[in-house]
């Protein structure tokens, strides 16, 4: 359901294999999976939201938990390609101060953080 790949040997890109609603049980699975990944050596962690249909509060808590885990290493977390509704949700929660939500695509995020 989720996969992570290293791009340019520096950035970790997290992708959803198919269109996904990260809600309920999937949110719990996602959090467990996300926190197991070895992302500490990454220059940036980029989440490709292309296949993200919706994310509930537990799903968002996964990103906050990841932020807490990576914050000491000051690794930026980029959520790119969020739909307007999801972007509004992150903005309402003021989480745009923890995560970069302005990149429209992975390539834009790599351009900004991957060099």
């Amino acid at each position, binding site marked *: 359901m989720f996969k992570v790949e290293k791009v340019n040997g520096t950035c970790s890109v997290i992708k959803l294999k198919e269109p996904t609603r990260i*809600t309920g049980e999937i949110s719990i699975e996602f959090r467990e999976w996300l926190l197991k990944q070895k992302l500490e050596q990454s220059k940036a962690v980029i989440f490709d939201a292309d296949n993200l249909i*919706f994310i509930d*509060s537990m799903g968002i808590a996964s990103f906050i938990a990841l932020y807490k885990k990576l914050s000491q290493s000051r690794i930026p977390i980029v959520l790119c390609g969020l739909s307007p509704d999801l972007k509004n949700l992150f903005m309402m*929660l003021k989480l745009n101060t923890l995560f970069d939500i302005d990149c429209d695509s992975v390539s834009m995020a790599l351009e900004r953080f991957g060099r």
Partner: protein
Amino acid sequence: MGKILVVDDDRTIRMLLKLILNKVGHDVLEAFDAKTGLSVAELESPDLILLDLMLPDMNGLELLDTIKKNKQLEKIPIIVLTGSTDQENKLIALRNGAVDFITKPFLHEEVLLRVKTQLKLHNLINSLENAVSILEKDLVAAARIQKSLIPSSPPEGYFESIHWIYEPSHKVGGDIFDIIAIDEKTVLLYLADIAGHGVNAAMLSVIVHRFIEDYCDNHPNFELGKFMLELDKNFRFNDFKLFFTVTAALFHNDSKTVEITNAGHPAPILIAEDIFELKESAESIIGIDMLKGSTKSYNISSGARFFLYTDGVTEATDDDGQLFGSRRLMESLYKYRNLELKNQLESVFYQLKAFNGSKEFEDDISIIGIQFQ
């Protein structure tokens, strides 16, 4: 070890099975026909039945059917004993609820292994069912506790009227609210939404509720900003692994103002001449050290209506996956603005339910409405 009923008209087979099963410690009951088999089963409630399909008084398949339709016996696993050429009946028996079959003539070892496997499975299923039943009872108890926290009669004299819709999406949910009189002229209303649902979220909602109640009791000079900072300090994401959003509104009846603070929650809605969202002051969620404790005051006019809601309302989806959204909510509230407050809320909720269709709401639904004096 188990209590096993052998139903077979062949005495030799019964004796042989008894010998095999007794040897490893099982208790064996015997019946030579279907009628006796059924009455022994009802009387003794065996852990497993070995059932021959060729019985003198009734076809074994019929007895299988009778047992599976009997509420008291339906869960007992049944292994059928068949002849090697009896393929058709084996399939019918499996289709009708038998868990396995043993073909005659059988090996001792095979009988023991098949019986052992089915008893183990049966015990596991029983344990699981018991565990689920205990959990369900706990959930019902938790729901009762949570519901008891919702105010049954709000403090009087502060508003013209106050009503709410409160529907946890599961038995227990993460939404919690309260109305607390601070002094004769001031009253606090808050609505919090704990991330997730189920027991975890419900437990935290109870703790948050209790904390706020206690805080208000012990702070006669209540200040909204300081209150929010205190919440942020006491409910750290690192400790609870959950966050929550909350809007709190402090109504000052003497100055006819409402002071609002909002930590990651949907903005309150005000309907006076027009309808608008009270977007200030908006801050981040509770528990991640980002709160500044800022608040914003608004004037309130007589007859104006004020609404708080959780994102379960705006994130309800129709069959095409479209969100209900804040625009639709505001349109609905405005459309029914001339109804009594209670009817206005019920009409909005009715529209929301129709939009959501026949499926259950994915998130808790809370909408609180207030009409000012």
